[in-house]
């Protein structure tokens, strides 16, 4: 079931070679390890890019997280718990 979350979260990520790679994030009192970045895409809100990641973590759960470059925050947009 897909659930809209829209919560700011802490994400441990690697910034390397002009790319962002989320590695772990905290949500609901748990630290989740990213097993795979299924897809990533970029949108713009005004002049500020927002980096979206569809992450696989946990068993087969999918988390959409967004790095907002204007507010400099990570957002958990929605989750798809299998």
């Amino acid at each position: 079931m897909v659930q809209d979350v829209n919560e700011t979260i802490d994400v441990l990520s690697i910034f390397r070679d002009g790319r962002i790679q989320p590695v772990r994030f905290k949500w609901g009192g748990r630290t989740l390890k990213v097993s795979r970045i299924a897809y990533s895409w970029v949108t713009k809100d005004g002049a500020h890019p927002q980096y979206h990641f569809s992450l696989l973590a946990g068993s087969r759960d999918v988390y959409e997280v967004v790095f907002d470059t204007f507010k400099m925050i990570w957002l958990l947009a929605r989750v798809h718990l299998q």
Partner: protein
Amino acid sequence: MNRADAGIHDGRKRRIIFHIDMDAFFASVEQVCDPALQGKPVMVCGGLDKRTVVAAAAYPAREYGIRSGTPLAVARVKCPDGVFIEGDPEKYVYTCLRLNMIFEDFSPIVERYSIDESFIDVTDSVHLFGGPVEMARRIKRRVRDELGLTRSLGIGGNKLLAKMGSKLEKPDGLTVIMEEDVAAKLHPLPVGKLFGVGGRTERKLRMLGVETIGQLACQSERRLQQLFGVTGPMLARAANGIDDSPVITDVEQPPVKSVGNGYTLNRDTRDREVLDRVLLALCAKVGRRLRKGRHAGRTVTVKVRFFDFTSITRGRTEEQPLDLDKEIYEISRDILDRIARRDAIRMLGVSVSNLIHGSRSRQRSLFDHVYWNKYRKAIGAVDSVRDRYGERSLVWGRLVRRSRREATDDDAERPKAVSGFLYPEAKR
């Protein structure tokens, strides 16, 4: 090396065009984002609680008879176990841009035909990649490796043949139709499969006894002109695989002819307050798009679709071109007032045509120029804020929710599809 790979036809260099058609594009992107959806009947829609249609159906959903354009309500009945996903247009636009960047690594002549279809003229670069078929395989491989998507690719001696080729084998197909293949590969197909033949033309052709593309190819251009007017000779040429149209890159595209937006309400309504608000949201969207593209237009058209799916379209042409939200809104509202029928409305649309490019709206009368000059400056400032902070940073006051209660009662009429005017709640 097959004939397409030879690159020579009748002693002269032949055109080689690729047509790339992403398979169930939006649904495929969603399946890449969420691998658990692979193999499931995924359907991407405009919204899940709305009177919308399926924008893309994955192949398992098509087995239930669901296609792009199937109403959501019908799709839910036909495929109760379907996975319905609200579409994310920005994600698909981004993916489309990434795809075209890959294509441009193979040839600079790329035409973005639609969000999920592109033509590539590879005539002058095909020799660098080991011939058309090897080049096509490389493109498919890169799209799969970098984006995880599958696509059907048609290779042809022109755009028509390439497009027909990409439709022949789906999903993940690779089909070559050169000029010499037309009789064998194209002519046996039903006439409805020919690019450019819609449902009405197909029915008319079948009534005339024309069942296959080959039978259409045998008809004289003169006869087809008598039956179909100017499109008749084009049909005859298409049936013979003839098409000289060039692949048109973004910079070569002709200027837009009109800018418009439409919105289907969540429930039919006669409530003028609601309709005016939707109209304002549409006019604001159209105005913003006009100004962004540096267009201004003289004709404002309003389209109204009623509860029974009958439509009325009315327009008005002004002396001076317009691009300001308020100007467009005032004229649109006036047009809506003059539509005498008072039945419940299902859909509203606003468009501005008769465009002058590189222009902006001009003074409308001698007496109100001070007001309009001030208004233009204010809208210019609003546009600057939106350019920097996003479309939702400033919205018309009438479009802002006043309370959660109002959001519940009235949310259906607040057009989320008019993106950029997403109605943040006002703080009390």
